[in-house]
């Protein structure tokens, strides 16, 4: 279709000019490949050796951790899930050691990331909270004598944390929030340094509790929306959504849950297991059965990896299509997300984010010519979301930006 347009000639010229692009253009005259070279490049590399045992440095650490905490990797998932946390030791250890090697060169930042990783291993702790705790450790360990010094030190630490894993939205948001807190509280200016420091540490300690409390608040807020006899579709495993459903079950609500499988981590299996323990009727679906079951569904409940400025969410792959299907069938889509997941990001479309890649196991060898889409997350625009349940209250998507402006202005 695109070659009908007059500017096709320009396109041609562009393609012909740089010699390194010739390979991709000769492959297939595809609009996408010419429009987004980096994508093509990376996927091209990926296609070359899809089963590389050493993880690509581009692989998202955030999704690695998630998989380690919530995924069911093997087929005997029941046994694994019951063994507390379904760890896949190779998965979590390999990238960590590999990734830790690189920042260790820069002395001090090593300790932050180390600290962060220690916190991160706790399955119940959100990534943002882990980041805050790591930053609090920085404050505690710092030998700074003035607020300014401390601030600079913190800034360095948070920058190194952020650059350590650029794909994790809540890590970035958590660091930013903490920096905001340090730089913006005017109350700190009038105190002496030591008390200010201890206040910061105290605040950081509180944050972990707050995060757990946030989940409870969200669970309480969402109870009004779960009515007896309803059918809820959930996607993947989300700690907040689990808390919501748990509270609803404790409140003696009668409802049934459809869990998607959540490929490739199969996190949905874990959730269905948890729900089965609560005696909630659960049905498992494969990810492609969402549209098939949507008429039975009364509402869709999803978590979020990040809530962006537009009010849309970034979440595990597949959320967008579920939201689309739900929207076209006029089913409400509810998002449960803590407020520390609000990030100052504004993706315009799916390709507008830093790619968070993830190895995908298809069970059979894939020929090297075949590309694999390995992105771990997608972006759901706000018009497909009905409400956001956050610890700030039940918000419409447009309020998110309001809160963010308040926070970051």
């Amino acid at each position: 279709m695109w070659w009908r347009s007059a500017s096709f000639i320009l396109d041609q010229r562009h393609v012909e000019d740089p010699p390194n692009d010739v390979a991709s253009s000769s492959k297939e005259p595809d609009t996408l490949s010419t429009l987004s070279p980096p994508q093509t490049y990376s996927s091209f590399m990926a296609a070359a050796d899809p089963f590389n045992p050493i993880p690509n440095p581009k692989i998202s650490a955030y999704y690695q951790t998630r998989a380690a905490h919530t995924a069911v990797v093997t087929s005997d998932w029941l046994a694994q899930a019951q063994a507390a946390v379904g760890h896949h030791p190779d998965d979590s250890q390999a990238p960590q050691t590999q990734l830790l090697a690189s920042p260790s060169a820069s002395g001090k930042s090593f300790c932050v990331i180390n600290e962060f990783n220690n916190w991160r291993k706790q399955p119940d702790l959100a990534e943002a909270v882990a980041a805050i705790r790591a930053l609090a450790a920085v404050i505690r360990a710092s030998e700074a004598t003035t607020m300014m010094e401390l601030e600079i030190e913190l800034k360095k630490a948070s920058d190194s944390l952020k650059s350590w894993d650029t794909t994790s939205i809540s890590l970035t948001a958590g660091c930013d929030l903490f920096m905001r807190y340090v730089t913006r509280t005017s109350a700190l200016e009038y105190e002496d340094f030591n008390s200010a420091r201890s206040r910061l540490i105290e605040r950081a300690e509180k944050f972990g509790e707050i995060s757990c409390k946030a989940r409870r608040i969200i669970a309480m807020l969402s109870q009004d929306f779960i009515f007896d006899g309803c059918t809820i579709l959930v996607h993947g495993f989300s700690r907040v959504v689990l808390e919501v459903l748990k509270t609803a079950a404790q409140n003696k609500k009668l409802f049934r849950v459809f869990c998607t499988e959540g490929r490739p981590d199969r996190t949905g299996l874990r959730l269905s297991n948890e729900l089965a323990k609560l005696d909630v009727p659960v049905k498992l679906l494969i990810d492609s059965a969402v549209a098939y079951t949507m008429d039975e569904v009364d509402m869709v409940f999803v978590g979020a990896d990040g809530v962006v400025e537009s009010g849309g969410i970034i979440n595990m792959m597949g959320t967008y299509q579920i939201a689309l299907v739900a929207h076209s069938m006029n089913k409400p889509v509810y998002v449960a997300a803590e407020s520390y997941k609000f990030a100052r990001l504004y993706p315009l479309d799916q390709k507008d984010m830093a790619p968070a890649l993830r190895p995908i196991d298809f069970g059979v060898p894939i020929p090297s010519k075949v590309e694999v889409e390995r992105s771990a997350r997608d972006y759901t625009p706000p018009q497909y979301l009905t409400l956001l349940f956050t610890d700030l209250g039940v918000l419409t998507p447009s309020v998110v930006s309001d809160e963010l402006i308040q926070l970051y202005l």
Partner: protein
Amino acid sequence: MDPRRASRTVSDPKIRQVGFFAPPPDRSLSGPPDPISTATTTAAAAANTSSSPPISDLSPSGNSLSPVMIPPPRHSSDTAHRPAPFPPASPPRRGTLSLTVGSYNNNIISSSPTASFCDESKGISVKVSPTSAASSFPGGGFDATAVKASSVPASGLTTVSVVKTLPPGFTETIVEKVGGSVEMQNDLPANSKPLKERTSKAERRALQEAQRAAKAAAKGSKLPATTSGAVASANAKPTKATKPPSQKNDSATVTSSEKKGGDRPPEKDRKKDAPHPRMQYDDKSRVEKAKRRAVVKQTEARNRVELFRHLPQYEHGTQLPDLESKFFQLDPVHPVVYKVGLQYISGDISGGNARCIAMLQAFQEAIKDYSTPDEKTLTRDLTAKINSYVSFLNECRPLSISMGNAIRFLKNRIAKLPLTLSESEAKAFLQSDIEQFINEKIILADKVIVKHAVTKIRDGDVLLTYGSSSAVEMILLHAHELGKPFRVVIVDSRPKLEGQLLLRRLVGKGLSCVYANINAVSYIMHEVTRVFLGASSVLSNGTVYSRVGTACVAMVAHEFRVPVLVCCEAYKFHERVQLDSICSNELGDPDAISKVPGREDINYLDGCTNSENLQLLNLINDATPSDYVSMIVTDYGMVPPTSVPVIVRESCRDQVWI
């Protein structure tokens, strides 16, 4: 103004703290004013509360004049203070009463939330004699006695109701010439009656005294009349305040405009009658009046489109030589301002930012050359001066919303000048303020916008822009400097063909461009990956008010699922809501669309333009609904169109607090 936020802050502070929300120092205070405490504060205290949160938090609503219309707080009190015009046959008693009414009206203003008003009342009280200064706060003095008599509610609470129930349009109604005061004077006898039932003993007594004093005043003794009359007006206040202002608006303005005499001194006349920039131009009598005092003698275009008769439309090219010849005669307009006005007319300065900067710099010059005349205060006289300049510029070309905002900023600054400043200090202060506004709100804002928007340009993108926007141009150039490979599609339209200028500059810098007319936009759109648009203003429902054709481009882009990014500085945001392009717009030269210059062979309409059946419509701007806008890039970051009111609110707060 924002009860949601305030109540939330108060009701569950624990929840608010989650996520390290560090409340800015004043926000928690911004709840609605406590009725009783405000009631017991005197009017004088109310004048001081300009710096205290509750009152000034309300001020956005008080300030909610349209941006284009230069909110003339100055006018209101000026007019209020001046004796209302009366038919010559009116008896002397009414005359004295009207004086008190004037002071009453003034008091209303001082208790209204706008800070500038409050300053005003101070200025007035200084200016008049000490006795009338006391009388200009009748509510205060009266309240004190009422409290002693343990009967707070009657007058005290109603004073608050003035503050609280003040509808957004209220200030406008006061602004509406002398309407309020005239009407007030007419209604006074009737209104004081129902009030009597509720008043306390002390008040009844005061009223009696007032009436007695009024009678005495009618006999000729003037001084007691002012003081007692003030008390009477204090009693009358509640009825006035609770009355819906709309009906008063209609009746009163008509009467006042009828009664207006032509024997006023010209300087005062000018100051007062700066035409309402959103004047409805289909209102014949108003237009006549506006014309009489206009510096620029514009000739009205004939055969205007019925739907757009309320907008000014002039024959272009007629007034320029005339104005140029008058350059050295015109006393009231500063030559620099005059020059800028001429440049507006001739089209030498166009584009929102350019016009705004030119205007502000002209004002800067004018302020530099300004000296306060004898027996005048700087704040009042300078505002009047600025008003006359603004009305002159408005006659040259209707003001844009961004200019309205800039003027509002300047007037705010003038009104808030500390009284202790000397003239030279004040002038330096204002000049640096203007400088700062230009630097921060326009130039720096553009830089921030560029910084944000560039992150949305990916390698290999095809960017479409419409017309010529300075912000978009900077973005494209900066992205090019960064070495990003991308292409640009410039869509343009007759009659201005501004895109060609942009095209020329971009091609000169080595960008690869495609130039298309707006007719081809649906054809070209499917290969476009981003649409960047400029805006003249963004309204608080997210509507983008911009050069005509923008809505069309945005709609096509939306249909093709191409993200539309609107680049607009936050100073152009406005709290008004507009649903169509009709009610407020600008009309261009109709000849521009009926003729193609230099192409005699296709000017088919040559003979027909005077035909009664032919109406030419050359709209300048249009309104793009927020549905078609994916993102607004502004100096506060990248926000969805739904967050425009948030930014308007925040920047309002900035202006109030700083």
